[in-house]
């Protein structure tokens, strides 16, 4: 069982504005807090690892960048604008053509073992928990 996100996990951040957003969004402080429209994400615990999903319709793999450092993940991308010029929009709901999200995971992950695939506009990133962050059984000698 992996540690779950806790309300206390943001307590160490000194910036009061950051803390305010963190209290709304948990430890997920990123574009949501600045009012930018960003792709929605899910974080799932699966077989002792984290799975990060992001909705990236219209993005190709080459349009997406992913960086992992310890327990931090940075996901960014930009997609081609397929709209021809000089057309009349009746609806415009789809979000901006570029985004950046910064996420904090509950524990550190093994960055060198992270794998990602983008299929049908859905990104799936598998983040194995770092060995140092794995739960360990401690033998108690009586």
């Amino acid at each position, binding site marked *: 069982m992996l540690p779950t996100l806790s309300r206390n996990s943001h307590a160490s951040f000194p910036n009061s504005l950051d803390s305010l957003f963190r209290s709304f969004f948990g430890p997920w402080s990123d574009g949501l807090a600045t009012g930018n429209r960003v792709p929605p994400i899910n974080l799932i*615990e699966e077989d002792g690892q984290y799975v990060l999903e992001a909705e990236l*319709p219209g993005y190709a793999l080459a349009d997406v960048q992913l960086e992992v450092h310890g327990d931090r993940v940075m996901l960014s991308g930009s997609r081609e604008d397929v709209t021809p010029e000089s057309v009349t929009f009746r609806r415009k709901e789809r979000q901006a053509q570029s985004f950046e999200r910064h996420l904090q995971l509950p524990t550190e992950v093994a960055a060198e073992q992270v794998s990602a695939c983008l299929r*049908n506009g859905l990104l799936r990133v598998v983040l194995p928990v770092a060995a140092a962050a794995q739960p360990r059984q401690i033998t108690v000698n009586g």
Partner: protein
Amino acid sequence: MNTATATTPTTTPLETFSPAMDLYETADAVTVLVDLPGVTSEQLTVEFEGGILTLNTAGVADDRHYLHQEFHPGHFQRSLRLSDNLDASAISANLEDGLLTLTIPRSAASLPRKIEIQSS
């Protein structure tokens, strides 16, 4: 969106969500772009009945352990009333990288016509 969801692993209900859509007009057609991430052409149905175009995706229920959830993969539904001057029988649909593009041509009767003026 909040930490309550992080500590409550539940089976995702079979809800549907309205996907984001752009709609623009050109001289001879209306183009609709719909974000359908994670959806394959086999999962998508596009129907037209009584002047209303309806998109539906057959998402599957999942019981994964969500630590944080902002979307339900693959559950979308959206309807759109088409103007009478569009030719619904000639709709073309293309789904690529989770982006659906529908092109609906204007009906021949609604296109501007040049009328010959005859001199007597």
